[in-house]
């Protein structure tokens, strides 16, 4: 087994395996481990460094510097600049997310079959079978009550009060200590991210991992993908190092994320009318509740409660989120002494959010410096959904005993009392007036039967090319309305099975 990290300028680094997998997140790690278990030799190529839990930062500054893709500076271009949150390290976003595991809803496979020509019950059974196995291997359990924390408890109580069915989060966390540090990576090694299990297993099975190795191009022999090439980047200084080329005797699997996968194929010269199109997301926005008693939102599971009660009718998922103190100043409105006065009540605040299963469609292009450029604007239909979701979250806060809420929408008062909650329904629908982020990303290399409207076929093979497979969220043709990690992993394992069969 071998791990090749940053190499200074010198002779070209050359590696050969049956399959080259670009990316080591939920998709890349899953497809790699399934291929390795099937007897194939695998080389994983990851743009970011390998950080073990003892390397994880504690502060949000450190998390942005050491774990986020380009310090989290990727923002949407459109009506509003909304951050696109992705990780850049071995294990990908599985290292910095809240470890939420939700099975792919059955209606998704029906929707894919109806609108994109694949999916259906047969695919559902296969993916759920893989998800069974992942849940067992990644120790998926519900949040233990003793580490629920005040915020998750209040959300549960508030939701019950207003008639929303809810549940404790299922997360891939073993023996959670409730330290509320999921977003910076779990230094206690309780969160089961891909860098702790699947990637080491690939190496134990003879695989190779290249880290600090951003791929510049997929290499082709005619229409057949034969490998990838790039240049090592120092994780601290960002200096260029040696060139590398990784050859895949049987093919190249691209799993670099919904933003980087389409950008990589574009700069590699892949011709497809649908490449970079049909980018979708679950934009989310949060509401602070202000309580009389201290909440200490950073104790307990980072995200330990959610409700899917509004998913089918309204396309909404409601959940808790602990916002670190360092990010709260940026989230509260105002500046100067007024901002400091508002920060004084931090211990009494807690944030709950709504994520929208948006119908809005954007695009991804390869930009300067091989960075993806994301064009995305929420349409009015989705903005209305978000506004409705924020209203529901505000109602939950009041039902749980909040004395006021902070909606964080430009044009609204800083705080609203219980008798003013319906004013949220009159809030602006202009995206620029909202603070939102895009955390769940889909599309850009979508799968389908028609080469005019899809980049890859239902098995993930890029139309018109040989040996080039898509195995990440970029291949998903729709949003899900639930956290996508489990679906990405199940679909990636299915892709591996199909590759091994062929």
């Amino acid at each position, binding site marked *: 087994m071998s791990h090749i990290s940053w190499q200074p300028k010198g002779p070209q680094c050359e590696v050969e395996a049956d399959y080259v997998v670009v990316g080591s997140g939920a998709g890349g790690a899953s497809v790699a481990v399934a291929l390795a278990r099937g007897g194939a030799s695998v080389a994983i190529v990851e743009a970011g*460094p390998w950080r073990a839990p*003892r*390397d994880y*930062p504690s502060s*949000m*500054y450190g998390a942005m510097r050491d774990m986020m893709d380009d310090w989290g500076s990727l923002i949407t271009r459109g009506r*509003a600049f909304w951050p696109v949150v992705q990780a850049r390290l071995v294990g990908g976003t599985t290292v910095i997310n809240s470890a939420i595991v939700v099975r792919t809803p059955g209606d998704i496979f029906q929707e894919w079959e109806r609108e994109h020509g694949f999916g259906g019950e047969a695919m559902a059974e296969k993916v759920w079978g893989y998800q069974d196995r992942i849940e067992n291997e990644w120790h998926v359990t519900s949040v233990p009550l003793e580490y629920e924390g005040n915020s998750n408890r209040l959300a549960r109580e508030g939701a019950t009060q207003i008639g929303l069915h809810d549940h404790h989060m299922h997360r891939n966390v073993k023996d959670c200590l409730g330290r509320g540090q999921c977003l910076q990576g779990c230094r206690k090694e309780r969160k089961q991210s891909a860098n702790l299990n699947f990637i080491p297993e690939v190496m134990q099975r003879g695989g190779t991992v290249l880290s600090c190795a951003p791929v510049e191009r997929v290499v082709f022999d005619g229409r057949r993908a034969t490998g990838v090439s790039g240049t090592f980047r120092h994780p601290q200084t960002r200096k260029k190092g040696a060139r590398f080329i990784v050859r895949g005797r049987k093919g190249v699997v691209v799993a670099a994320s919904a933003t980087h996968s389409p950008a990589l194929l574009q700069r590699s010269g892949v011709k497809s009318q649908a490449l970079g199109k049909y980018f979708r997301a679950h934009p989310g926005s949060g509401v602070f509740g202000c309580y009389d008693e201290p909440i200490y939102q950073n104790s307990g599971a980072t995200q330990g409660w959610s409700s899917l009660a509004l998913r089918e009718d309204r396309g909404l998922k409601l959940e808790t989120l602990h916002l670190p103190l360092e990010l709260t100043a940026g989230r509260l409105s105002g500046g100067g002494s007024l*901002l*400091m*006065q508002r920060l004084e009540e931090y211990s009494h605040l807690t944030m709950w959010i709504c994520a929208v299963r948006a119908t809005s469609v954007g695009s991804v292009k390869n930009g300067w410096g091989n960075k993806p450029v994301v064009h995305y604007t929420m349409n009015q239909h989705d903005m209305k959904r978000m506004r409705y979701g924020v209203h529901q979250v505000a109602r939950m806060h009041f039902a749980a005993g909040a004395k006021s809420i902070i909606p964080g929408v430009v044009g609204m008062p800083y705080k609203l009392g219980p008798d003013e909650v319906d004013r949220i329904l009159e809030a602006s629908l202009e995206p620029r007036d909202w603070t939102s982020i895009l955390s769940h990303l889909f599309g850009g290399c979508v799968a389908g039967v028609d080469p005019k409207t899809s980049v890859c076929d239902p098995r993930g093979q890029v139309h018109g090319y040989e040996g080039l497979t898509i195995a990440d969220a970029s291949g998903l043709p729709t949003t899900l309305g639930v956290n996508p990690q489990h679906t990405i992993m199940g679909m990636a394992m299915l892709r591996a099975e199909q590759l091994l069969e062929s």
Partner: protein
Amino acid sequence: MRMMMPRTGKLPGVGDTEMVSFLRTLRKEAPFLIRVGLVLGSWLLVFAPILTIYLPVPAFFLSRKLREKHVQRASVHRFYLFRQAVMLVKMMAGLCWGRHPDIRARFEMEPLEADPGTWRDGS
């Protein structure tokens, strides 16, 4: 950043934390776009009282009361790009302020451990 998060009766401001070393580190480590955005946002905060309180003087010539008014209006300005540039300054100030042990102690939070900034070499 000092204007954005000043000291108050109950809380230390960002100037009371390790702001200078934070900015020095940021300048060394942050990507170009973030550095440019922060400089641009800071310049706007200093030189844009004309857009907020309609006075053609830099912010450092303003009285404390007027400066407070300027910063408050800048952070909720109707011109989106202006508001976003100021937001970046506020965000960076928050990153510096919120990780300081004294500030965390005020909120009964444990101090953060050091960010090692290390990674795994090849094997």
